[in-house]
């Protein structure tokens, strides 16, 4: 398992697209051969993966959004990013 650096800049892969599914009322991630139904946290993380923010900034933004301490969600956010990177939905730019 690779570690997620605070300074890497996650970017949603070019092949993938986020979509709000109005029929099912769920956030989805669409890619060439499939669909992932996202939970709220995974969606919120992905929505910030535009290749501009560093991981630490994403954690901070989400902490503000949820009204919690950044330390409390740091590990969870990194775990989500790691899973998404493994599935090639997110690339981690230096």
């Amino acid at each position, binding site marked *: 398992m690779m570690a997620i650096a605070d300074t890497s800049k996650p970017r949603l892969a*070019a*092949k993938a*697209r986020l*979509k709000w*599914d109005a*029929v*099912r009322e769920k956030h*989805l991630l*669409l*890619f*060439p*051969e499939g*669909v992932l139904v996202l939970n709220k946290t995974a969606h919120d993380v992905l929505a910030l993966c535009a290749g501009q923010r560093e991981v630490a900034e994403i954690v901070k933004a989400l902490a503000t959004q949820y009204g919690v301490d950044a330390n409390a969600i740091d590990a969870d956010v990194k775990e989500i990013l790691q899973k998404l990177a493994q599935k*090639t939905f997110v690339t981690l730019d230096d």
Partner: protein
Amino acid sequence: METPRPFSLLCELTYRCPLQCPYCSNPLDFARHKTELDTEEWQRVLTEAAALGVVQAHFSGGEPLLRSDASQIIRHARGLGLYTNLSTGGTLLTEKLAGQLRDAGLDSLQVSIQDADAENSDRMVGGAPSFEKKIRAARLVKITGFSLTLNVVLQRQNIGRIEAIIALAEDLDAERLELANTQFNGWALKNRAALLPTRAQVERAADVARSASERLKGRMEILYVLPDYFEQFPKACLHGWGRVFLTVAADGAVLPCQTAREIRGLKFDNVRERSLEKIWFESETFCKFRGTDWLPGPCQSCPRKEVDFGGCRCQAFLLAGDASVTDPVCSLSPKHGLIVEALAESEAGANKNLIYRTASSSLQTVTRQ
């Protein structure tokens, strides 16, 4: 249980094709279905599909680029917020057409290749010189700004060249390489004696694919789809009948999967006569094998019944003669001997004669049935 809504729609824009691959997924009797939905009808189908819950539209054929309105149809799908994917044989792709597809908002473009060199590739499509055109198309896909997916159907006659196929994909700088072993329904079943690989071939190819996938991590994604004949349990065909996927064929017939037309006795409603919503939720054919209540003996008590839903209905019909029995690929099927026999024949040697997917062989096939 509430009936699920489909995520994915396959639009087979036409059954016409300049190539004649002997494992084509179109029905054997494709030449009988000559009418095609027009532009407006396809647009209406897509609008109905989006309302039904479809979020992904795949466009294939035959050769979808034989339809001069392909871009127009894709633009409509994209306007509905659908993720759009087009699979082409590549021979008709031009710079202008690639640009039109990009401008229409197409998300993903896939090119099929048959082999790593012109001689073997051209033989597999029925002799038409097409390999160079396919390579040009693959390069064009990249130049136009799409990510490139190459689709390869693996079978006895190309599986030994898997290294060369992977090297070609690397050379073309593909982002994705899909190595799918032949699914033996329809045309492929007709040609099974020539196309079914040996176990040693399949295992060797799996090893090669695995190490290439490791080596190319981050550059190229390699999908190796195992052939069900060599596994203990069947595949959950399209994640279950009438569960996440539907196909609209060139003439407007709505199918649970693109090969379902091989199952004689099933009636397929047409989008010209009923709405997609009604067909999905209410048609006899979609309801027939949905869920697990209909499952036969060996499946009903099986812990895998929610995993594979009894396997492929087309395979059950084509091999065992009854679409409502366990897929014979399953080692627990009373008809599994049919698979064992086919594998033994494959070990003993291949028949080299291919029946190509042509209109005349399609019509002959129909007469013989």
